[in-house]
């Protein structure tokens, strides 16, 4: 990929810091991170357990608020957003994929996938059509009406991917998406994310301990104790 061609910055962070107050002590989750990620990149985030990967992702996803610093995602300033702007941001700008899938147990596969679109005001028929297309693409059509409890781990994660894509967000964030999967299912999930990145131009940021995603990465960022230790292109 040609770095020069991608001038669009989708994530911009400066001095980004997140400190968790824990009683009288403080835990530094993220420490003065400066970061710029261009649209269309496929970033693999690495680092030991506790190094701050999840913290960084939840800040970028608008799930959590930074203690200080600057953070702009898709041109929006996350530190200045109101609660309702953040809700809309989560709906429209990012798609999240988690290690533990985080599907709603009372909703069927199809309903789980539709949910973000419906929350964004898309009519049910449209949302269902979109969901079906995505599930088809992920090989999940047969499972449409099942509840999450009836699915295997791989199927749950594919459902979660469909849910992350339903609103066509420019940015996909995945926190250890393969952590609970065997290598075959893990590979499949990573391949789908690669397709999204290569064929549809979604920016993908994956935090992971595994090396399954390494072949597709355009960039590796290593975190250590909440700070960026190294930031490099594909090896």
């Amino acid at each position: 990929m040609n770095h020069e061609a991608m001038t669009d910055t989708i994530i911009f962070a400066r001095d980004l810091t997140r400190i968790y107050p824990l009683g009288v002590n403080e835990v530094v989750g993220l420490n003065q991170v400066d970061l710029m990620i261009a649209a269309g990149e496929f970033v693999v985030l690495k680092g030991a357990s506790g190094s701050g990967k999840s913290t960084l992702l939840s800040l970028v996803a608008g799930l959590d608020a930074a203690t200080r610093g600057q953070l702009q995602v898709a041109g929006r300033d996350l530190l200045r957003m109101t609660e309702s702007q953040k809700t809309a941001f989560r709906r429209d700008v990012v798609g999240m994929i988690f290690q533990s899938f985080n599907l709603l147990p009372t909703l069927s596969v199809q309903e789980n996938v539709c949910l973000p679109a419906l929350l964004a005001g898309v009519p049910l028929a449209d949302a269902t059509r979109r969901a079906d297309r995505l599930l088809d693409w992920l090989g999940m059509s047969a499972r449409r009406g099942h509840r999450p409890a009836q699915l295997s781990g791989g199927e749950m994660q594919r459902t979660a991917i469909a849910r992350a894509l339903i609103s066509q967000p420019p940015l996909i964030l995945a926190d250890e998406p393969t952590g609970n999967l065997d290598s075959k299912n893990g590979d499949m999930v990573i391949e789908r994310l690669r397709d999204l990145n290569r064929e549809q131009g979604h920016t993908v940021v994956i935090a992971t301990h595994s090396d399954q995603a390494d072949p597709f990465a355009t960039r590796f960022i290593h975190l250590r104790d909440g700070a960026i230790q190294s930031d490099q292109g594909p090896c």
Partner: protein
Amino acid sequence: MFFFKLFIWFNLRQVQHHRWRALAVVLGIALGAAVFTGVRISVHASLGAFTRSMDAITGRADLVVTQPGGRVPEDLVARLRRLPGVTDVSPVMTTYTRPAEGGRPFLLVGIDPLLDRHLRDWNRVDPGDEEADWERLVAEPFTLLAGETLAAQAGWTTDARVVLSHRQGDTPFTVAGRITMDGLGKAANGRMAVCDIATFQEFTGTSGYVDRIDIRLADPGTDPGPELTRLMGNGLRLGSPGALKQSGQGMIRAYQVNLSFLSFTSLFVGMFLVYSLVALNAASRRHELAILRAVGASARSVYWLFIGEGALYGLAGWLVALPLGSFLVRYLLEGISSTISTLFVRVHVDRLALAPWEILISLGLTVAVAMLAAVQPAREAAGVPPREVMTTTRHQQGGRSDIRRLALGGLGCILLVLPLAHLPGVNGVPLPGYLASLLLFTGFALLAPWMLQQVGRRLQPLTARRAGGPAHLAAGYVRDSLARLAIAVGALITAVALFTALVVMVRSFRHTVEIWVAQTISGDLFVTTRMAETNRVWEPLPPEVVAYLAQHNEVALVPNRRFSLSHDGHPYQLEAMDFAAFQEFGHFFWLQGDDELIPRLIRGEGVLISEVFAHRNGMAAGDLFRTQLQGRTLTWKVLGVVRDYRTHGGVVFCSLDDLAARMDGLAWGGVRIFFRDRDRELDAAVARLRDDLVLRFGDRLDMMRGQALRAAVLRIFDETFAITTVLLIIALLVAALGIATILTMRVLERARELNTIYALGGSRGQIRRMILWEALYIVTVGEFLGLLCGFGLSYLLVFVINRQSFGWTFLYGVDWAALALSLPLIVATALLAALPAMRLAVKTSPAALLREFGN
């Protein structure tokens, strides 16, 4: 509209999945709503029946002339008719009479059919010549037209001969026809009959007088003019015909509000149930909420999802309450209408009208209450931060400072109770009293977490040594999950408090009324003219009866004369009595003053007023009492206040001799007979005298043995309080349901922790014991606080709510034996309620639970 979809997906399916929990909650709410609706509809039916009856009798009258404590001279009719602007004048008389062969009393209305034509209508059941009916009533003495209900119930047909009973003796009548349930025929719900006014006067011995005169004006808007007012000399009163109706309606409505509040207790307890289930769902689905928020749901929609869940329970409860309530109403209707009849005004109810408004009120209230109960959990749910989607551990809430704040708030509520309780009630509705009760409940419920904390902290080291692991763990849990536990304790507090207050109130009330009955309603035989008590009109006893009794030397007589009057719109009785004779055989139940006052009362220096009268009219010893009686103005000083529990308002006692002097002579209206020799076979002697009197004057007198009268008075009181008791017992039931449900939910809520303990090597027995210990903590604290709250509530019931709604108070007495006996029973019940929870805890396999609660 997507909100509803989300609600169905997210909440409704969860409810469906745990339908037994939801069912318990819905049942609790339904019971509360059913009682509330049933009570409201029953009173509504009584109110409707009363209003219809009053309207039927009032007809189209614009003005009505009456004589307080007496009757209106008939010759006034002719003079009124000559006045300009007066279109119709019609004399009316009413009385209750009954068939001599027995049966319930019915209303007899005497009118002049010709004069009355434009004021009231009626229709014959059998179509025919209407004119002929009137003519027969007028032309043929002692004929009557029977109302539809009466004719059906008594089996009267046209031309039947019936014998009716009244103070003049038994008199035969002929049924000239039957009239339908329209117009005048609706009076007393059709248990009525019409006769010509002349017949009426002859029957009741009231020639020359009528009860009232109805007037219709050409232009009802105009002032009746000085001519009309000038005719009103001699104490006659010109008033609007609606006054009686309005005062009766006012009393029934006040009673309705009272009962509504009482039945609201059940709904209030139901609130705990809704709260606990919504809170459980919100807490156990915390992670799902974080997911919802993470994928783009706003905090506000999460909030409304849970408010919606509360509303759902309310709505479902209300739907279940409808059939439940219509079943209940059959039992309530009779009790409530007869209580209204004994306490306030006579009502005849035999059917239920559909009351859409009442049903709407109950719908609104039930749903509102359920939504209110969901507010706190909904707020907690809305506060779940989306970032929790990243974590897998769950969070405990309810910090120390929270608990202290709650406790302080609770203390504040409790401190407010007393000043609030002393504010005056509004129109017989003890609004401040009820609000104070609610504050009391709330205050104690808010204190519960702090109490639990204290108990847990003190007990933990102790239980660790004594009871070992489970108790120790339980104490730890109690401390760690106070906020949720407090609800279980809140429900228990409410139950114990209700129970305690009920025991105290029933005991205080029964004890006091028993003393009053024994002291004040002393006497071996009570004699009045026939139908006097039913009509609340005490006519003079026939002179020959008085003469016969006076020469009877084995008995002492305590004569009286009573008048039904009203003071500032509140009905009361003026009772003139022979204090000197009474003093030998009975006592007053003093509140202000003592027996030293009797000589002054005998001399006519003043009067005694009852507690009810004192309270209704804001009077006390030392005040002046003034009234109009049969055209005379009477003024006395109030010397003392006594307890009196007679129904239909308060009493003023004055000296019979004094009143006779002021009124230029006064005949006895009734007499109490005492046998001088108290050692003889009293029963036999009373029976002999009674038989003797029946033989001589039987059809003109009503007689009641002292014992029977006292028993009847107590029975009436028990019936009156039965409604209250039933309402409180239902609230108690809901509370018991609540305790069982909440304990079970507690187990479900902690299924994961319990199973972790199990997985770490805790035995099922240990887990079971842990839950038992927890239940014991809850029950101990709940019982203790409930008892305190209950004494507070009983004080409010006895001294505030009863005083403000009925005007009387009781001697406060606690039935320690009943309390001591039943409190362990409540403990046992509460522990029993923990049983399903204990079974559940060890029944479900850990793996299944992990799946159910897993992501």
